[in-house]
């Protein structure tokens, strides 16, 4: 399985990104890490170039909320990404918020898996389960 990961927007929090890269590799994924400060378009473009099965996006500084609405619009421009699994995690709002609301909102933006302040391993378990389920259906 191929996964593209990175930190979206003008976000320089790099620690989680390094951990995600290592954890994904340890779990046997082929990882393409775009690092910090990555534009949304670069994530989709990287998925096209690599044939990735999933995007695992981090956002730590809270800015993801700002451009969430653009996700579907942007993705609609791509003709080959219909099956791409979309996952996001980190601190998905500025300040605090109700997790249930946050998850619903991001699902609405087009994400399949939303991990607001969820620990990495728990998050990646859910990715594995999601991919597994999908391959069976």
């Amino acid at each position, binding site marked *: 399985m191929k996964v593209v990961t990175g930190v979206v927007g003008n976000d320089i929090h790099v620690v989680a990104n390094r951990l995600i890269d290592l954890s994904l590799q340890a779990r046997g994924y082929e990882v393409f*890490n*775009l690092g910090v*400060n990555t*534009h949304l378009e670069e994530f*989709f*473009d990287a998925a096209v*170039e690599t044939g990735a099965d999933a995007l695992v996006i981090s956002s730590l500084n809270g800015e993801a909320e700002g451009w969430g609405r653009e996700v579907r619009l942007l993705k609609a421009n791509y003709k*080959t990404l219909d099956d791409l699994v979309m996952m996001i995690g980190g601190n998905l709002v500025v300040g605090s918020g109700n997790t249930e609301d946050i998850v619903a909102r991001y699902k609405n933006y087009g994400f399949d898996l939303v991990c607001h302040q969820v620990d990495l391993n728990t998050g990646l378990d859910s990715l594995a389960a999601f991919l597994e389920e999908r391959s069976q259906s």
Partner: protein
Amino acid sequence: MTDYAMTDGNNKLLIDVGSTYFKISTLDAIEQHFRDFNKGILDDLMAKCGETISRFGKQDIHVCSSANGGLSTLIIGVTNSFSLKYATSIAFNSGINIIDTILYQNIEDYSLPSDLIDVVIIVGGADTHSDLFSDSLYSYLKQLDYSNIVYVGTARDAPRIRENIKDVVVLPNIIDDRLHIVEEHLKAYLTNLYQQDIEGKEDIKHLYDITDNQIFPTPYIVNKALPMIDAKFSVTDPFILLDIGGATTDIHYSKDLVEDNIVTENEYDRLVFKRLGVYKSKQSLIFAAQSNEFVYELLTHLKVTENIFNEQNDKATKVLMQLAIFLVLCKMSHHGKSFINLKLLAINSIVLTGGITKVLTVEEIEIIIAFFYKKILTSDHNPVTVLDSNYDIWTLGAGGNQ
């Protein structure tokens, strides 16, 4: 590639043939002449500088040229952020000026260019991916008129590409496994093609009558000089260099200025604005100026009116050059959507080379730069302007390791 270190650096004649004028440089003097388009380049050159040229042996004469107009390139790639961007960057760094791009997934929506394309570049995919291209590519290519075609995408698709595209040259992927750029192979190929193009152009071919050395594209020479620039100027990195020519404008910039995913070995990259120049491309420069919302304010600031566009005098040329500087800076800021945006607030020096240095004074340039930073970037940032009025940069690059 020629190794200049072998020749005696002190006794060389350097010749640069541009679209508008040529210049020749010896140890003690630089001459510059407008070209006479009723004559062939060599005849014209010999008529004006024959005496100087005859004082040098063929092995001591080095020629660079931008007069063949460069190669026209069409790049077909699968994404904007990787394949198209990387191939465009390599093409610019190889001295190519005319670049059009096609985003492969929408290939059916593009109209066919009517002119012959010198080289088509096909690119897409990391090597772990495959099946990126299919019939829509092959049928587009069937209708296209081109001289050369090169494939630099995923290695896995190379056999299919070879089967379906006649005479395609296959080179290593320009995208590596970490999605970083790999420049060398495509760059060598394009520089070579440029070379063959020069040799094929009747007019330029004759220049080999006076030199034993390879004729290089001028921008390639300038780019090569930049790491050595402190030998001649007090320039502080990061800097940009503007070469506003008769037909096109070249920008060379420190890599530190790019907020970008391109990671190359080069310290300096190049990009070109085609159809932005003060002689051959004057009309399109004026057109670009008229569609820029800040230009009228700038003209007022320079105490002239729009009528200056219709005038043909020294003042008009000065203003056109000033506008060219402004437009180029605009195109490179986030305001203009060029293929790369530079961190203009981080620039410490702006170096200007080429004919412009003979026309504008430092003050006339600084007024434009200050206006740009104030109006467009609302900042008091004030990089140092450096004029390369003796063509030292070109001399550095063309003369090699002296």
